[in-house]
């Protein structure tokens, strides 16, 4: 049976893993290559590395970090942050990424999704959407530039357009829940997951096993991503997967 994926995310700034609460107040959490390998060994189904500083400082993704992390990883490896063009993507792929994640640049010009998908395949293109509930709570807006500006676009409509442009997966982050540990936004996740045919990765708000069970069951997520809960010994990935599996969710365990 196809299992639900548990993805460990490394938010990287200046070559170090950091994790902020609601995108601010960053703390240092270690070496990306070491952490990626450790997460893989303890049962992560996939690793995502996001260069969180890249979008607003407009600097290239840390290719060296990608290369070091990729060398010892034999599970899928996604890299995002600051990828604007086909050439940026190609450089990340040749450093060892299997997929790229693209956000602001895709909002600015959705055809970049198509260009990368035509060259590397849709399976290699993840469109990341940072979604925030609108002030009147009527819908979710897609944010750009690392969550600093609203694109003015409806997150659901954007997910559908991204799929039409050739995205292979949607990485959906709830900005309202990110870093809070209060649980994924199941309503947001379900609305997006039911509106597209491609897999949706839920992100933002993981605090414990029950949140993963909820987002798979009620949020219809295909995968769920977390960062901070894995980094400070808060929750061992292996224990987390066992717990999720024991509640009837198919997971890759033992692996």
């Amino acid at each position: 049976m196809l299992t639900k994926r548990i993805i460990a995310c490394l938010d990287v700034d200046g070559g170090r893993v950091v994790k902020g609460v609601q995108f601010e107040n960053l703390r240092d959490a270690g070496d990306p290559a070491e952490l990626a390998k450790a997460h893989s060994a303890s049962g992560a189904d996939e690793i995502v590395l996001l260069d969180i500083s890249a979008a607003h400082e407009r600097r290239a993704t840390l290719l060296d970090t990608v290369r070091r992390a990729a060398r010892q990883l034999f599970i899928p490896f996604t890299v995002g942050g600051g990828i604007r063009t086909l050439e940026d993507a190609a450089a990340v792929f040749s450093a060892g990424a299997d997929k790229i994640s693209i956000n602001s640049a895709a909002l600015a010009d959705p055809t970049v999704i198509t260009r990368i998908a035509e060259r590397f395949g849709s399976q290699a293109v993840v469109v990341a959407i940072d979604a925030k509930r609108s002030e009147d709570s009527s819908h979710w807006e897609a944010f750009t530039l690392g969550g600093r500006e609203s694109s003015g676009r409806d997150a659901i409509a954007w997910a559908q357009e991204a799929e039409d442009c050739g995205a292979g997966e949607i990485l959906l982050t709830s900005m309202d829940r990110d870093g809070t540990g209060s649980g994924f936004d199941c309503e947001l996740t379900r609305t997006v997951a039911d509106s597209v045919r491609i897999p949706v990765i839920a992100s933002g708000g993981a605090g414990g096993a029950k949140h993963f069970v909820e987002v798979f069951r009620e949020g219809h997520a295909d995968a769920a991503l977390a960062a901070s809960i894995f980094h400070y010994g808060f929750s061992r990935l292996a224990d987390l997967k066992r717990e999720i599996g024991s509640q009837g969710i198919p997971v890759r365990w033992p692996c």
Partner: protein
Amino acid sequence: MIAIVDYGAGNLVSVKKALDWLGQEFAITSAPADVAKASKIVLPGVGHFASTAALARSGLQDAIANAIEIGTPFLGICVGMQWMFERSQESRETSGLGLLQGECERFPASVKSPHVGWNQLEVNPSSRLLRGVPSASFVYFTHSFRAPVAETMVACCEYGGRFSAAVERDHVFGVQFHPEKSGEIGLKILNNFCGL
């Protein structure tokens, strides 16, 4: 020397990295002459079935067919495996190698597509490629089309119905999943192939 065939489709880095890890000697090549003298051939593939049309145009298809004919072990991965069949619904105008009978088909509308993630294998224990890989092992898939259940199937997977996850006939092998992305189990499968 193992030849990893580069026909301009997708990303070969992860296959290269896995063979490096296993300590194998290999060359990434798009030259038919290199394929002809290779000790083994790996045909990776990500992306669209139509991209395999480049194999026929460049002479690589003939080189691969001849090498298989003289007994060179061959491993097709993902689209590389699908290409071993006659054709695919993904691109009607592109012919496969036709080494195996049948047509690759779309997933039914009842399941999400692409099929992305870790799924389990039901393994035929007589497989040489999957030696030491127990049934129910997890491997990583990412594909929108699938090979039919074939006589040569040595591992089956279930997603919107059963399909061939691995095929094997004599020294010719194909895997729909990505062994280079499937952790320890995947490395074992690649190592089995390298050790043939």
